[in-house]
């Protein structure tokens, strides 16, 4: 039995004539302890897919199974790192995380919870900013808070919705390492949604491209056979890396071209000649 299973999942927004089928016939299985990346263009329905898995949305057709049981709502077992941080602006960094862990571990004392918060804040190197509000932090720091919040809840599976999309390359690299570090230490199942192929290859065991929506569906998977821990600088010379990377990019380019050719419509222009005003005035 797979850890997470999506069987023939369809998701449609709207009804009747206005219905748009965003996701179409999605089949996906993730085993326990695996790190899977889904790569896709922006607007291809990645966030919808994430929300189906974490339980914020229900599929129109098909089923989402988590440990063999259908996903009917959100659960603390599946932690989410949202694309746009989603921190509560009126709470400090510590309070944001505290609120989350308090819900997950209602039996722990306040002191234990605070220690837990401090531990995870330290893990993302934000101890000096623990009493600051999200507004006072940079984008990278905010994202780190979101990471700490998701991880402090100790979920069995981490779902990341383009967690690093809005960050600069340097911060991005650091955070990738931090996430990998934590994943390696605690061996959780992870699903990463991203638009960056390199990021996917660097972090994941498997990469699955998402064909652009409407009617987005998953493409063939690419296995990444590179030993962990991976080194970013060495990776560039790794033959396996180059090959996989080229294959994925080629595949995505092909989809892009396909889409363009489908969209190319020919508009017939009316045969008009502009009226001449010469000599009239």
């Amino acid at each position, binding site marked *: 039995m797979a850890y997470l299973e999506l069987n023939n999942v369809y998701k449609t927004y709207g009804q009747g004539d206005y219905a748009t089928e965003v996701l179409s016939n999605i089949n996906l299985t993730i085993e326990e302890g695996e790190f899977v990346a889904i790569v896709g263009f922006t607007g291809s329905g990645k966030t919808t897919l994430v929300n189906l898995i*974490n339980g*914020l949305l229900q599929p129109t057709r098909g089923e989402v199974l988590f440990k063999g049981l259908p996903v009917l*709502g*959100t*659960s*603390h077992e599946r*932690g*989410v790192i*949202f694309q*746009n941080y*989603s921190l*509560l*602006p*009126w709470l400090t960094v510590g309070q944001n995380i505290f*609120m*989350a862990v308090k*819900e*997950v571990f209602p039996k722990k004392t306040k002191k234990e919870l605070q220690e837990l918060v401090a531990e995870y804040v330290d893990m993302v190197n934000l101890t000096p900013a623990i*009493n*600051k*509000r999200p*507004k006072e932090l940079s984008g990278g720091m905010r994202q780190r808070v979101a990471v700490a919040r998701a991880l402090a*809840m100790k979920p069995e599976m981490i779902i990341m919705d383009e967690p690093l999309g809005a960050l600069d390359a340097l911060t991005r690299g650091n955070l990738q390492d931090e996430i990998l570090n934590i994943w390696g230490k605690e061996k959780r199942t992870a699903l990463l949604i991203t638009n960056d192929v390199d990021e996917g290859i660097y972090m994941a065991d498997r990469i699955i491209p998402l064909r652009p929506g409407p009617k987005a569906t998953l493409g063939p998977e690419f296995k990444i056979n590179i030993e962990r821990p991976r080194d970013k600088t060495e990776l560039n010379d790794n033959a396996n890396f180059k090959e996989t990377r080229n294959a994925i990019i080629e595949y995505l380019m092909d989809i892009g071209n396909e889409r363009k050719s489908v969209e190319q419509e020919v508009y017939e222009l009316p045969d008009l000649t502009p009226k001449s005003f010469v000599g009239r005035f």
Partner: protein
Amino acid sequence: MKQTVTLDRVTKFMGLGFLMTIKSLFTGDLDKEGFRNFLRKVVVPIASIFLFIGLWHMGAKSLYNIEADYKIEKALTEQGQEAADVMKACIASGDISCQPNTLPSPAQVWESYRSLLRDHQIIKADKDAFAEKTATLNAKRIAEGKDPITYTGRPSFVDQILTSLKTVFAGFLLALVIAVPIGVIIGLSKTLRSSVNWLIQIFKPVSPVVWLLLVFMIVKTLTKDSNSDSAFIISFISVGLCSMWATLVNTAMGVASVDKDYINVAKVLKLGPVQKVFKVILPSSLPLIFTGLRITLSVAWMVLIAIELLAQSPGLGSFVWEEFQNGAVDSNSKIIVAMFVIGGIGFLLDRIMLTIQNAISFNKTSGI
């Protein structure tokens, strides 16, 4: 991370940033930019105040002349040349009996202001004397279980201001207690929102006078047997009902339009419904709720005058009305004094609300 409290921060917080510019003028650390700021924030407003007073003075003077000319003209046509001359002399002498009744000049208003303060001193002394005189008697009456004798003399202007403030705060609290919870409930449920929307839309534009009459109908019946101060009850309930709509609508809107991301966070954390309301929905709609409360307080203060005037409840409203009915020489200028006092207190109340809003909410807004 503790921010130090400086005068600069406090004044900015209260929307009184111009005070800082005045301070830097005295301390001497005023650069070119600061000087320009000083001109813009201090000199120009003060100049405009003088300009306003000047225009007012000239306007009042010309109105006075028109009224005086009319009086003389009237005496001439009705009683002949002799009466006109008498009238002219009478007006020029400043005799009270024949002063033209028109817009008072700034100087007259200032004089009335001082006379109102003097009047307050007199009444206060009178009150103190009364309290002293009846102290022993009252103590005895209380011991016997009777009501103490209270001062029933005329209230001074300051007493009336205090009464008005009491009424407006009672009304504001009533509005707060009614509008915020109902607004939250309406905001949470789309069904409720559409079911009470007609009610809000219909009652929102109803005039304060009509509210007063409605409240009067109800309170009159309810307080038939009690000897409580029904004028006060009627006026504060009317003030509350008139002014609560802004808070109600804003709260409902704030609650209904909470950022979807925050709702998602609440869902992912699996917060219970109560926790969701108190930890996510209320804090995020607080800025809008406070905007509503600010509007409510200013509306409350505005309608208060009209309501007091009609409800015969003591306060600034009835002060204005009584002065108008009085028709004494300084009545007009007393009304203008009341006008400035009303405006000043309204401004002060708004600043207080802004300060509280800034202290509570995470969205810092500066005063306009």
